[in-house]
């Protein structure tokens, strides 16, 4: 990291804020934990911050806090996922999907390169299952169709995807709010995946 750092003391001076404010903002998650950089100096340990980012953040907080509560501010700084729009290459860069799966997805879905949250979820699930080798490309297509057709259901409820095979024929099931399920003994459960868990995982990648 080649960013210019600023010590806590200098920062308070420069920005004209108090310790109380700084600690309060930290508590409210207005300042990300990893901006607190600990370094040892000749006076013992001191905390440093990335100067540019920190000053911008403080400026934002100070101008907006007159209209918004600190909690509302915190929601603002945490990436707002429902309005999230990302480019395909950004997803690849963030390791959410590999290039080959992304191409496969676009080929089948024929959508634009801008991804909203539900499309990110689709491509993420596809990536997960294809890369683990649990399913093949045809099953991937089938899964994709199920997910696209039931977009609205997936958004609001707790959903699980189940893929089964019997006598070489695969089936894809989308289970909404299910407590459990059973098959006859000839059916092999290929994979089951909770879409909510996937969603959590995606969110955690953006934080």
């Amino acid at each position, binding site marked *: 990291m080649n960013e210019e750092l600023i010590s*806590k*003391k200098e920062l308070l001076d420069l920005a004209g804020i*108090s*310790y*109380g*404010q*700084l*600690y*309060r903002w*930290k*508590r409210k*998650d207005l300042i990300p934990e990893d901006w607190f950089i600990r370094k040892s100096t000749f*006076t*013992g*340990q001191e905390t440093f911050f990335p100067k540019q980012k920190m000053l911008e953040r403080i400026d934002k907080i100070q101008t907006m806090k007159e209209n918004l509560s600190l*909690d509302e501010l*915190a*929601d603002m700084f*945490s990436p707002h996922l429902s309005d999230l729009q990302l480019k395909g290459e950004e997803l690849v860069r963030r390791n959410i999907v590999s290039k080959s799966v992304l191409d496969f997805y676009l080929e089948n879905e024929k959508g634009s390169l801008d991804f909203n949250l539900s499309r990110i979820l689709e491509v993420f699930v596809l990536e997960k299952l294809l890369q683990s080798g649990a399913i093949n490309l045809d099953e991937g297509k089938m899964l994709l169709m199920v997910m696209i057709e039931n977009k609205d259901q997936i958004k609001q*409820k*707790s959903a699980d995807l189940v893929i089964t095979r019997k006598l070489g024929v695969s089936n894809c099931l989308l289970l909404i*709010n299910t*407590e459990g399920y059973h098959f006859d003994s000839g059916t092999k459960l290929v994979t089951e995946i909770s879409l909510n868990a996937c969603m959590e995982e995606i969110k955690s990648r953006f934080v």
Partner: protein
Amino acid sequence: MHVWKKSNRDSYKGEWTMETKKRGDLIINGLGSSNGGQFNEVTLNGKGTVNSDVECTNFDCNGLGTVNGNLAATTANISGNGKINGSIEGQSLSIDGTAKVKNNVIVKNLEVSGKTSVGGKIKSEDIKIKGRITVGEDCEAETFKAESHFTIGGLLNADLIDITIFSDCKAKEIGGQTILIKQKATLFGLFLPFIQTQLETELIEGDRIEIENTKADIVRGNNVTIGPNCTIGIVEYSGELSLDEKAVVKEIRKV
């Protein structure tokens, strides 16, 4: 099926709404164990064990209770000996006996009158402690009031920190707006304690700091009052400083 909706950040700040359909109660009297799940009331009297995550409105543990998973309860009460092998989330948690939490405690109100140990962090708005508490990581609150003996492995961060030292206390760092640390008043002021109890920390940072019986490497603040029996490495202040004659301070800097 019951679906709990929580706000995305801290669960205690979100409204806990329940999709209506009646939930059952889980009551263990005597020796028993159960799987977890979603309940209205969970009461463990005697020796009760719950073997997975629990979600409930009221959690009451009066004997020796164990939850092998996370506990999400609007109100939780541990009056006996409770052990949670996971995290606790909810609105209010009161502990009158002994409680051991493996991971985090994220509740709006926390009241401890017994002995508590938390392996992870505590995030709360209002913390009141009379007793003994051990926290592995950070402890965050708007107000932190303690008449106790505590050990905090990370940062103690609160707007108002009001500590009365009853026995040796330790925190890695303390930060906030107002920080008050005082020694427990002795009986009639006559009997001075034979063994001095101290609060030990590396760093104290705040706007208004009044401390007694504290050992710290660095104290930084606006208005700083260093009381008797303090041992401080460096004091940095920008407003006013008052020093007790019985305090030892190696270095003073006015910034």
